[in-house]
């Protein structure tokens, strides 16, 4: 009986269901009309190098400071074929005012050097311009933003060329000295010149090897020395001794002690929570905190990760994407730095059962003042259906709408055809590309075109975009916490440079306000420790807050 049941309950990702519910905002695929022509080079080969199926990511950042977020997308490459590798090209797209983007890669000076994975952006040198870090299967690269639309490779001088296989990265002022340090998550030690055989020679089938086939790697922690150089402090920080198959990272102060902590999603190994104890030292506390494994004590294949306070209790919650038949996990923040496994309780569990999740973001897509969740999915194995009944390679994206502050309902099939389209998705980033007050999405796909999904109708409800300007060299105030109060509801947003899977969101804090026409109060807890409060802020505008100077600019949304 039990065996029969197992066969019966295998299910997989459902396909496109095109009908739309017009009551909800609709996501429209504007990739082509916006001029985003990027198509990922995965270099898929008969050798089945694992890296071929893992990338790549992308991000939103306003590299030229014009108030319109731009797009950077990482390309993969090829380990098996040099001619394919040469065709790979990262892409930088300049936002021309919300509707279209211009490919400015050529003149930007950004070049493809290694098999690309992920990216994060932060102003490491405090010149007011976001710089760009690219992770690779091979030496990583740091590009300094020169402020004239061009970037310079400063990897060698900055000493951040981690040579191993890196995945996600994040800039954060980990030691609270005012400048941005850098956290690089490394995946596994896979020989780039030779891929082990995993498969079945009897039926002449080969597939990508399980990550436990390889040796795990520790994260790399770079301390910013403030002179354009970084030091590798992985060992001294206590991080270097802990090896894992790291993929996703997000930096947030989960215990509200003023020090940024680091969550790392690990593939088939326990997730890490590095509690920052000060002076760039960390204690790994994932197991005790309750985020390392599932409620059943079993590890999951953690890929993407994000933090957000979805139940508005003032404590950070966590979402992690996993493999199919594992469920993507949700951990609800409790008191004393503990987390409850709320995967099923939240409604996220069962609907994610058939999906292999990667990119993920807490975001409020309908501006109802409750954090929703977007998830990009796609299998690792291009021949998955051959091995796993119910598995599909290309999978649709998921959109979980927060309905009761504790419970989500998956509404992806009713929010426009773009969410129903299947793809082999990896990276996902949220940002307001057209400054109209609702959050749009960038999705990167393995071996396929990227997707830019415009949110139409999210701004039927009110919202606010808050852009922070730090006083010190952390000019984007990465690590700041913004607390917005309307009536009895308090929302919090952390400014995070590096999240999801290989990706990064718009650095502006977006708050849905529902029908409320103004925020009663906005508190900013700056990375410096200073707190600033602004009262009575009207809805439907972007406000710039400069540390110590309150609101320095206000612009109504473009509609």
């Amino acid at each position, binding site marked *: 009986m039990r065996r029969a049941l197992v066969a019966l*309950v295998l299910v997989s990702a459902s*396909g496109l269901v095109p009908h739309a519910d017009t009551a909800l905002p609709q996501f429209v695929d504007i990739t082509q009309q916006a001029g985003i022509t990027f198509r990922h080079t995965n270099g898929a080969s008969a050798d089945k190098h694992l890296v071929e199926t893992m990338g790549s990511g992308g991000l939103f950042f306003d590299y030229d400071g014009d108030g319109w977020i731009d797009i950077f997308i990482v390309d993969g490459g090829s380990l098996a074929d040099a001619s394919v590798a040469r065709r790979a090209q990262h892409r930088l797209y300049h936002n021309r005012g919300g509707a279209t983007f211009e490919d400015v890669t050529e003149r930007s000076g950004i070049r493809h050097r290694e098999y690309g994975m992920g990216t994060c952006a932060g102003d490491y040198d405090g010149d007011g311009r976001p710089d760009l870090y690219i992770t690779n299967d091979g030496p990583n690269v740091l590009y300094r933003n020169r402020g004239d639309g061009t970037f310079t490779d400063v990897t060698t001088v900055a000493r951040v060329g981690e040579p191993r296989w890196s995945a996600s990265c994040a800039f954060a002022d980990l030691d609270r000295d005012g400048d941005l340090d850098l956290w690089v998550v490394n995946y596994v030690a896979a020989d780039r010149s030779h891929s082990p055989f995993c*498969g*079945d020679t009897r039926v002449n089938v080969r597939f990508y090897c399980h990550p436990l086939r390889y040796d795990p790697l520790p994260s790399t922690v770079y301390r910013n020395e403030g002179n354009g150089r970084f030091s590798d402090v992985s060992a001294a920080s206590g991080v270097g001794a802990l090896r894992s198959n790291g993929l996703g990272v997000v930096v947030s102060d989960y215990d509200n002690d003023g020090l940024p902590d680091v969550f790392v999603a690990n593939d088939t190994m326990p997730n890490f929570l590095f509690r920052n104890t000060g002076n760039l030292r960390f204690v790994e506390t994932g197991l*005790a905190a309750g985020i390392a494994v599932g*409620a059943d004590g079993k590890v999951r294949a953690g890929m993407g990760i994000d933090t957000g306070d979805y139940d508005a209790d003032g404590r950070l919650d966590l979402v992690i994407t996993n493999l199919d038949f594992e469920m993507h996990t949700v951990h609800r923040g409790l008191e004393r730095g503990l987390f409850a496994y709320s995967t099923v309780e939240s409604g996220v569990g*069962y609907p994610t059962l*058939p999906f292999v999740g990667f990119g993920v973001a807490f975001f409020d897509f309908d501006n109802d003042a409750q954090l929703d969740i977007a998830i990009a999915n796609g299998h690792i194995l291009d021949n998955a259906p051959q091995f796993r009944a*119910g598995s599909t390679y290309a999978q649709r994206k998921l959109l979980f709408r927060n309905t009761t502050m504790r419970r989500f309902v998956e509404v992806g099939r009713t929010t426009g055809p773009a969410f129903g389209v299947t793809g082999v998705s990896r990276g996902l980033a949220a940002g307001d590309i057209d400054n109209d007050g609702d959050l749009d999405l960038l999705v990167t796909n393995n071996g396929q075109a990227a997707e830019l999904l415009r949110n139409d109708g999210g701004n039927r409800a009110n919202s606010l975009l808050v852009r922070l300007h730090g006083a010190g060299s952390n000019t984007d105030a990465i690590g700041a916490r913004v607390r917005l109060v309307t009536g009895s509801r308090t929302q919090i947003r952390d400014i995070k440079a590096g999240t999801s899977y290989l990706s990064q969101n718009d650095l502006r804090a977006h708050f849905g306000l529902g029908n409320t026409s103004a925020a009663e109060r906005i508190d900013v807890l700056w990375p410096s420790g200073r707190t600033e409060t602004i009262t009575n802020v009207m809805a439907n505008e972007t406000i710039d807050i400069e540390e110590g100077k309150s609101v320095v600019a206000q612009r109504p949304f473009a509609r």
Partner: protein
Amino acid sequence: MPAKICVASLAVTMTVWASTASAQVETFVYAVAQLAQATAQPSDARAAAIRAATNRMANALAEWDSGIATVERYSERHVDRGVAYRVRGRLADALREFDAAIAERPNASDVQLLRALTLDSMGQPEDAARSFAAAWAAADRSDLVKAYYVATRAAASAADRERAHAQLAEAYRQESFTARLPTTLPFLVLDAIPDNLLGVPVVAAGDTAHAFALLAAGHFNEAVVALRQPVPAAPFDDADTPLSHFLRAQQDERIGEVASARSHYQKAMTGALFGRGAINVAIARLAQVEGDPSAAVDALTRAVRLNPNDPYFHKELALAHASEGHVEGAFCELMAALLIDPRDATTHAAIGQLFLDAERDEDAVRAFNRALTLEPDAFEARYGLATALTRIGKTSEAREQLEQFEQARRSAQEQRRRDIASDVDPSRPTAQGAVR
């Protein structure tokens, strides 16, 4: 293959029934099993095999009815007659006899239970709920089975359900019922044809669909008549038979068409003779993936009613209740699983997890400790215990549990790493590497 007629909790004796009628039921059920196997025969032998099985069923029914006549002749006990009628599918006759028995002994708890189950089968949930409540009210305080029936019946009064749940909760707290293994299965099954008889679902093709539906509904004579009807001249629509829906559902599952698979399983149910519980589990899981948790609860409730003595179904229903935030409903189902097997560590661990999710951390500690007493290597429970201890501030005990957990987990991980490394050796190829 004998039918299991579980009367363990009944104080009534059914001597006549046990000695004669149950053997006749077994003969009939065996013939039904042969019918199920006949439908899977190659086409040239299939019709003859179905005919032969139908004849055996008809003969068995005749003997069975003769046995019932003996009961009618020699037993003046309404209960014996009622049980005989109920198993035979004569629900109205059974109810009449149970009513008569209750008129003689109004406080006969077990007879009230028989009456309640019969009313349930007749689709009268409100009347059934009243009878369950009467059975429970007249029962011994230690009778947790009847408390379960009341606690899980939506038609029961809220006060009764609350008190019944409290009784189950108190019993779990005191742990008295776990001291010894039950010698018989706790839940009464009055259907002649057990759902799990063949271990796999058996679903009708077009020509047997009507008969299978009649058998599943307990209309045995009508089923025999239907099976003896000549196959209609007009061909069956092959795409619209229960079996074709079942096969389509399985295919849709494989390619990830969740909504379609669910719909086809529901259509297949109309002609499912065996394994309806399993199909309901599939429907439930698909409903959960589709974001329809209440439909999942409904399907699993049906599965439990069909297989009340299989703890697997109770545990699945408990999970479905828990996902809806119905802690009490989930607890009752887990208690049912424990009434069947009180020494199942995974059920105790599931109760621990339920309490943990409900932030009843002290209760969770107790449940996880029970699980670990029964199965010290259950690292799921070890992790749960550590989590609960952490939450209640017993940090040193929690640390100790986490260390033990982590040691076991690491050891398992290293073993897995070695297994995977050996799997990729081309001289010993397997497909395991694909499965994480």
